[in-house]
């Protein structure tokens, strides 16, 4: 579990302190004149079920802003906008922020809120960059103002299932557990494509609702199918519940368990090393990534706040940094100029070399396959897993369904 004291200390050190690059609640109504501070909106779930993710993301955005302020020679203010984790308040509050002159936004942890906010930002020539996961964000719902950093479902499956099939050629029978909604269907159809291509026998699938917390029935189905691999396609607390219950049913000893879309360090902390040992996790980010920017971030954050960046923090840090770097490149904070600066931008990001594809505004980056370590093998309290594979897999914009008019 997240150390509460470390969490609070991190909030104080990272979020306060520097004059520039401070995360403030949406009460700030500072001047938006050209010579005033540069305001970045951070629409995040500060309250509600996803508040923990929102809080870490807010810290990440403030951290990036503090770093960029010196480079830009300009005061930067990150304004938290509490989306409550719901699309309706998210859209309304983004509209209010835009009415006050904010044009640049980095946030949107949940796909439902990210989709509506991207559309709102585009309407008013704003820019919205997000870490949300739904394929539609840079697929069928792509638009001029929206950019997305995280790898969508196709790539997540390609970089978890494919490497494991190669590593375990004897594991021919796979069972899936899938949340029944668009995101889960995306992961499942991507998995089925790989199964078909590689001659894997898909021995069964159990759908479940988004409210489900009891997975014993689905696990009983899985046991009856006698798979070699159990592939969990849910995410967040549902994937934690499913994994916890799968381990309690002794399934770790009977089959390989893969969690295709893990939440990152936060999830490992909540589950604990014993439960995660030997389980494979797909991840957008890991603090152990061997890239210059990531090493620098981890080192700085550990020194200043005594905390290790988790995915919520790192993702928000990266997208805020991208936005600010684009402002610097464009020499302007106006939406169209920032969009132009972002499109086609290649840079050294947290995962190494990353590039923003102009046709659909999707960041091309690595997705990681992690394997949980034994508690005895952990070098420090956050060393839960090894990176066993990393790679880039993306559908073309056309195949993803993006039909965006270029500027």
């Amino acid at each position, binding site marked *: 579990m997240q150390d509460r004291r470390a969490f609070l200390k991190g909030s104080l050190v990272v979020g306060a302190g520097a004059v520039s690059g401070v995360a403030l609640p949406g009460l700030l109504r500072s001047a938006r004149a050209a010579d005033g501070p540069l305001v970045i909106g951070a629409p995040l779930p500060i309250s509600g079920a996803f508040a923990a993710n929102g809080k870490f993301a807010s810290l990440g955005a403030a951290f990036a802003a503090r770093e960029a302020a010196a480079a830009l020679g300009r005061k930067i203010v990150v304004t938290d906008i509490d989306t409550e984790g719901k699309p309706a308040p998210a859209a309304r509050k983004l509209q209010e922020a835009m009415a006050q002159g904010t044009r640049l936004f980095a946030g949107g942890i949940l796909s439902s809120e990210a989709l509506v906010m991207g559309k709102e930002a585009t309407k008013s020539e704003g820019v919205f960059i997000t870490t949300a996961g739904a394929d539609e964000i840079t697929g069928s719902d792509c638009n001029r103002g929206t950019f997305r950093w995280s790898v969508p479902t196709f790539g997540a499956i390609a970089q978890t299932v494919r490497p494991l099939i190669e590593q375990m050629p004897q594991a021919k029978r796979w069972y899936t557990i899938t949340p029944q909604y668009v995101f889960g269907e995306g992961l499942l159809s991507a998995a089925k494509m790989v199964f078909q291509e590689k001659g894997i026998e898909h021995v069964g699938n159990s759908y479940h*609702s988004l409210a489900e917390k009891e997975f*014993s*029935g689905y696990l009983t189905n899985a046991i*009856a199918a006698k798979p070699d691999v159990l592939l969990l396609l849910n995410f967040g*607390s549902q994937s*934690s*519940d499913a994994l916890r219950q799968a381990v309690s049913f002794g399934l770790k000893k009977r089959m390989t368990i893969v969690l295709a879309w893990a939440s990152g360090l936060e999830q490992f902390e909540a589950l604990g090393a014993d439960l995660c040992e030997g389980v494979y996790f797909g991840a957008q980010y890991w603090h152990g990534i061997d890239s210059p920017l990531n090493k620098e971030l981890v080192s700085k954050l550990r020194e200043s706040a005594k905390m290790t960046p988790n995915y919520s923090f790192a993702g928000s840090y990266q997208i805020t940094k991208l936005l600010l770097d684009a402002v610097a490149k464009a020499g302007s904070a106006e939406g169209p100029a920032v969009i132009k600066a972002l499109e086609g931008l290649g840079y050294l990001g947290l995962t190494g070399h990353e590039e923003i594809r102009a046709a659909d505004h999707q960041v091309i980056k690595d997705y990681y396959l992690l394997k949980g370590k034994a508690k005895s093998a952990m070098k420090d309290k956050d060393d839960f897993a090894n990176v066993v594979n990393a790679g880039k897999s993306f559908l073309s914009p056309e195949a993803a369904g993006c039909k965006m008019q270029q500027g």
Partner: protein
Amino acid sequence: MTYLFQILNGVGLGMLYFLLAVGLSIIFGLLQFVNFAHGAFYLLGAYLAYEGVERGLSFWVAMPVAAVIVAALAGMTERLLLRRVYKLPHTFHILVTVGLALVVQELVIIVWGPLGGNVAAPDELSGVMILGDFIYPEYRLFVIGFTVILAAALWWLLDRTRLGAIVRAGSESPQNMALLGYDTLSINTAVFALGAGLAGLAGALAAPIRGVEPFMGVEALGIAFVVVVIGGMGSYAGALAAGILVGVAQSLMATLWPEGARLVIYLGMAGIIMAMPRGLLGRA
């Protein structure tokens, strides 16, 4: 064979649901009080057990200690707050207890953080029972056995002891009991503490199965109400029957209609309300 396994799994699940709901049934049955803070006591019990284990206590100590602390806190809450609204309409019960639930949830987040945690099953029960192709965690078997014993003990306490007779009489005729010299206010406090303590115990027992996270009380409250409504408000035996029925239905649906496994619980409740408004075994 899969259906048989699902039924067996469903019985196990049902016993956990019964444990979750019986406290609510007792509070409503004996106090006619709608307690929307029931999930919060479950949440608190889970987190207290978690904290005890994190601090090095054996689970076998942390679990009952958590339940006792929850009962004590609930008793204090009843004395200081809830007894002021007993005579008011049920809407006030709901308002006050929903508010209480939100306060407890936020306090849990402040104290333990928002991310949740894991409680390992005791080492003695960390294995699985294997019967041919049927695999079942030993800890869940323990929960079933423990709940059966607890159910029997509760029945004996409430139906076969003088104390139980006093409690039941106090719920049916508080004025007469007061005239006979019984402290009905203290009886109410004890009943509320018992019901909440059972919720806390359910939370502590559920923690190794479900982990702990700050919003687990909301889900628990939903299940508890479904079980109590299906079984009959105030019916102890009804809660047991309904718990098992809900557990088996949910487990079977995981094979027959997986995406509807949760929906079927609420559909079942709606059907029962329409056909039998007092539930399966509710009191008139």
